[in-house]
């Protein structure tokens, strides 16, 4: 029993980091552009498809396919931001609707190219680690490490570099930051692209773990938004912890409770946390 719980704790943490990478994108875009971009889920889906296509279709080695996919998605994110989201800055509802429309468009495109038959990438790194009866698939461990590094890097970049501080300052007080010479337009575009890139990375790594269908985006964006919110939107490390909280809640929850309610455990936590801390766990207000 214990090893079952420990195993799911680990698994929950790993699955959680996949939510976290989306949550991170959500938090960044919200902080800088004032909208919640639900299309990040679709970007993740695209990232998965592109990675799969590059490695299984075009025969690019997986470690190279992923960065390529990330670059593509980041570029796409940039284009979409300039073409659409530039006009919905700081308008939550409009941004939401546009991103939902964008989801339909992207899914439609994927359907036209790859149909709905689930795609499965070759196994990049089969096999598992066994530690005292606790089983962790090797690839999952890799995914966890990569995502963790990226999240830490993002945190560092935002707190240590000028651009990062500019972003932070902007998120706190847009006018002031603008006065201090932060070039708003560039900043927003950059963050949009970066968030898209994060989603693309999530997708690229996802492809090595699960089968790919056009619907995968929706589940992950919901979990991502949940994570970002229960952590307190705007907090980098918060979104990380938030993702893990949801992942663990699902993993451990479905050991003791009926697995059919899997999705509920995260939601219940979310509601409870918001009721006792309406701005989220890590919110600084």
């Amino acid at each position: 029993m214990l090893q079952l719980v420990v195993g799911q704790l680990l698994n929950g943490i790993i699955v959680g980091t996949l939510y976290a990478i989306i949550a991170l994108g959500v938090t960044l875009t919200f902080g800088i552009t004032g909208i919640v971009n639900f299309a990040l889920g679709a970007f993740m889906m695209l990232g998965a498809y592109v990675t799969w296509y590059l490695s299984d279709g075009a025969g690019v080695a997986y470690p190279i396919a992923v960065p390529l996919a990330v670059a593509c998605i980041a570029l796409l994110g940039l284009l979409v931001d300039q073409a659409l989201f530039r006009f919905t800055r700081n308008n939550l509802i409009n941004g939401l609707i546009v991103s939902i429309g964008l989801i339909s468009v992207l899914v439609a495109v994927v359907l036209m190219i790859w149909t709905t038959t689930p795609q499965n990438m070759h196994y990049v790194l089969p096999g598992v680690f066994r530690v005292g009866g606790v089983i962790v698939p090797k690839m999952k461990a890799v995914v966890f490490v990569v995502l963790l590094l990226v999240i830490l890097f993002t945190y560092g970049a935002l707190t240590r570099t000028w651009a990062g501080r500019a972003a932070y300052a902007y998120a706190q007080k847009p006018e002031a930051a603008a006065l201090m010479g932060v070039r708003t337009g560039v900043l927003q575009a950059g963050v949009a692209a970066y968030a898209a890139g994060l989603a693309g990375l999530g997708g690229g790594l996802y492809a090595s773990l699960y089968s790919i269908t056009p619907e995968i985006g929706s589940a992950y964006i919901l979990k991502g938004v949940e994570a970002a919110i229960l952590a307190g939107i705007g907090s980098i490390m918060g979104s990380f912890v938030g993702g893990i909280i949801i992942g663990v809640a699902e993993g451990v929850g479905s050991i003791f409770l009926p697995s059919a309610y899997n999705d509920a455990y995260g939601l219940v936590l979310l509601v409870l946390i918001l009721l006792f801390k309406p701005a989220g766990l890590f919110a600084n207000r």
Partner: protein
Amino acid sequence: MRQLSRSIGFIVVSIALASWTAAAGAQNVVKIGEIEAQTGPLNTYGWMSSQGMRMAVDEINKAGGFHVAGKTYKLELINPDTQGNPQQAVIQLKKMLEEDKVKYVFGPFLTNIFKGIEGYAKQHDGQFLLMGGATQIHYELGKPGNDYLMRTWNWDAGASGFGTLMVEYLRKKGVKKVAMLMQNDAFGHVAADIYREAFKSAGIGFEENWFEPGTKDYSAVLAKISAGKPDYLFPGYTDAVLYDIVQQATQLGLTKFWLVRGSLGPALKNKDYIDDYVAYIPKYFEEAEKSEPKVAKFIGDYKAFFKTKDFPYDQAPLCSSSCYDHVFMLVEAMKRAGTVDDVAKVKAALEGFTYDGLWKIRYDKTGEEIFNFDIVDVQKGGKISVTHEQPK
């Protein structure tokens, strides 16, 4: 606000026009309809079957149509996409029956679609045939007021049920305990109800686990299952979930699988990690392609028709080929009945013979299909053994 009324009026008219123009059709054409989800999370069956029908209709028309009572007819296929949404299905079916005057409708495979259209379809009992694969249809067959219904798939349970034979196959292997891991949706529950009984009567232990459709990471529930040490895992239907379940199950030491819906794909991808994978496959194309010329021809035609190099071996058996057969079988029945619009006669004809196409298909007296199928057993390393079953 008057603008509002004007715009409403405008759109109403445009809809009307659109549907009327759609209603206009040529003579000597037999319209056949299809109500299936060709997109959406559960579209595999609908998508594949619509492919099969498109091929069949094209072949028949290319061959100059068919002759009934001295007249030559061509087929016109009307297959909108329900997207798995009952509301759309209702409207589409109404359009078929009332405007396009379609008398033969194939589908649906999805239970919620069937439930959605059933109320309306009943009102047209006797005026058309609905030939669908949805498991729920089984429970409606033969009831008064349901003469319009036929079911185009083997039924799991019962004497000639393929499920019974599948369980029997497992019992012969000396299996004591099976753990089911099913989608928590309509078919999932139907399957649970059927196989709970089937395994009980075969004296095999049966344990139920459920997951939300859309789940990707099953390791939690799988870990829980493997703690119970079952002999075989009975994973959900559709490949969308099978690939993930099989991979994650093998990682956790669950290496034996038994399934009644879904393809061999997951087994072949994980052939080095599984020990045994028993699947119900309506027809094992990889083998049949070599042994049966008809099948080889079909595969060739498929590649030509859809301009693709690779034939979806794992998906095709699910239905595209069975629906391909159904069109030919329907045409044959019309010939035998000597009419294209007397639904009752055509139905009687359908039930009156065995069609020998890719499949050997016949209907039982309730209007449910019985066809031969294969039990494919994949061993570690990908060694495959096939058992051909011909239900009585």
